[in-house]
């Protein structure tokens, strides 16, 4: 960009320079040829008065030695008829009509046509016209253009070198800033300030960006605190409501009262789950989520969880399809169960009744991979990475399926804390969710 700008500026400059130079040359030439015409005019006054065109011709013939660049010279009488003429030996005859009706200096190709009146005591008695070959003009144009081209190339090289030297100072910093912004966008980690020691506009930009990120970070923290406090405050009365509803459920055996109590209890469970999720998120954000590692059989946990979900999702068919070998693993059983419940309920929630959900596990030596395959609405390709973000709801389902969009975020955090991986893949129908936990020596934490 800098190089391009400097080349444009220099090219304009050189063009102006060549243009004015050539114009100056032409002006000088017009002046000198005009004065020569004037002198010839004065000298030929008597030849016109005495109609002696031989003498006039002699005067013009003298030009051959005095001004060899003159191609043609003419003296016209006051009726504009040719009176005497001179043509440089070997020269092509220039435009005669132009000579006859020449009013002011004319440049044509490399020729200059100049005329001057011949006066005798204020009386116009004739005209002199000279045609000069500007052999220097093309040479001048050529040499100036060459010089301009050389200078332009030199300037181009210099500006390129300067740009190369300045590049790290500007472009590198900009790219660094862009990468930092990208990183912030991807990780949501707002509290890493970008370091820039410059004193120019870029560092102003960086400072402004840092300030903005600081504010964003602060408001994020306030929001997290609010969620934490709010969910905690909501939990206390809810626990009490749930306790009394449980009691009522035991005591009441008359319909429809019992049904009402059970509906209320069902909703309370949902509410409790939401608040639990919010509390988990709050814990994740504040770093208070602790793992309680124990050794257990993953396959057993899978079967238990499938059974539990199947209980509430009777219309779906949840099956496990693998070699049913025991898979011992060291992990926080409760948290892994939470992940499984989340993924399975999602699979049920985002697929039509009567559709299948298939769970499988596979130990590849380094990690145990659990796959939950559904035949639901699927996840658009471009959302596959984003769905694990906080409060992220897939775009084509937000309207009619409830939820805060916290489940996958919590799952991801739990799996990452186990040094595992979690991801989703698009299938021709529905989608597959995977999580992998390290096994054996790879599970050493």
């Amino acid at each position, binding site marked *: 960009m800098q190089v391009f700008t400097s080349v444009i500026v220099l090219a304009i400059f050189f063009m102006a320079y060549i243009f004015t130079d050539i114009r100056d040359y032409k002006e000088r030439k017009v002046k000198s040829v005009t004065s020569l015409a004037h002198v010839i005019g004065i*000298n030929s*006054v*008597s*030849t016109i*008065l*005495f*109609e*002696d065109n031989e*003498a006039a011709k002699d005067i013009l013939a003298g030009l051959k030695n005095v001004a060899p660049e003159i191609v043609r010279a003419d003296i016209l009488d006051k009726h504009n008829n040719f009176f005497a003429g001179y043509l440089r030996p070997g020269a092509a005859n220039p435009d005669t009509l132009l000579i006859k009706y020449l009013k002011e200096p004319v440049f044509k190709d490399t020729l200059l046509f100049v005329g001057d009146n011949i006066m*005798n*005591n204020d009386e116009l008695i004739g005209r002199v016209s000279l045609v000069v070959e500007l052999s220097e003009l093309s040479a001048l144009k050529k040499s100036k253009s060459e010089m301009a081209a050389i200078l332009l190339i030199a300037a181009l090289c210099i500006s390129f070198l300067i740009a190369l030297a300045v590049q790290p100072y500007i472009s590198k910093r900009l790219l660094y800033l862009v990468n930092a912004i990208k990183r912030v966008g991807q990780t949501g980690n707002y509290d890493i300030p970008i370091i820039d020691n410059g004193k120019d506009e870029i560092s102003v930009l960086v400072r402004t960006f840092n300030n903005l990120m600081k504010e964003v970070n602060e408001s994020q923290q306030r929001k997290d605190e609010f969620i934490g406090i709010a969910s905690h405050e909501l939990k206390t009365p809810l626990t009490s409501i749930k306790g009394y509803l449980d009691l009522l459920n035991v005591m009441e055996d008359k319909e429809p009262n019992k049904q009402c109590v059970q509906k209320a209890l069902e909703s309370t469970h949902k509410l409790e789950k939401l608040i639990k999720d919010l509390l988990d998120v709050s814990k994740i954000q504040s770093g208070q989520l602790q793992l309680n590692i124990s050794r257990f059989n993953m396959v057993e946990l899978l079967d238990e969880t499938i059974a539990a979900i199947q209980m509430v999702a009777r219309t779906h068919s949840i099956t496990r399809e693998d070699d049913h070998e025991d898979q011992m693993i060291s992990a926080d059983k409760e948290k892994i169960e939470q992940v499984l419940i989340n993924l399975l309920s999602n699979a049920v929630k985002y697929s039509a009744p009567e559709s299948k959900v298939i769970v499988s596990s596979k130990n590849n030596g380094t990690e145990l991979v659990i796959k939950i395959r559904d035949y639901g609405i699927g996840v658009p390709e471009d959302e596959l990475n984003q769905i694990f973000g906080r409060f992220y709801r897939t775009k084509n389902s937000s309207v009619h399926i409830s939820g805060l969009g916290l489940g996958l975020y919590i799952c991801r955090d739990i799996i990452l804390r186990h040094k595992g991986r979690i991801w989703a893949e698009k299938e021709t129908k529905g989608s597959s969710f995977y999580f992998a936990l390290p096994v054996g020596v790879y599970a050493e934490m």
Partner: protein
Amino acid sequence: MWGQTANQEASLKAVFIYNFTKYIEWDNLNAEDNFIIGIMGSSALDATIEAIAKKNFVKNKRIILRHFNSPEEISTCHILFIPRDYPGPVRSVTERAGKKVLVIADKVNAARQGAAINFVLVNDKLKFEINAETLYTAGLKASSQLLKLAIIVD
């Protein structure tokens, strides 16, 4: 100009006579004088010279024409013209002319008989001879612009 008719030639000669005045210096011209052109007898040029005399000035002076029928009649004048058809010998006129009088003749060999300027035809073209010595003796100066066009005789 090439192959002029008699009429054209006559008017050209009249114009020449007038143009000569631009290149000859008379140092005896006083402020109140007119510029006098004397003509021996009458000639084909008369009409043209009269026309020129009416319209033009020589050295800012009015032009007066005088006709002299014989050398005895010659009085003060600045130019004395001897036309081709003047019957008398040139000498008789030039001897009477005196100082500061430019004698212009249109007669063969007149420049060798006391006329300062004499019209000649060279290749059908009107030219003029100048006798520099005669000019000098008459006390007149001719410009080099004129001399370079003239056929110099002595």
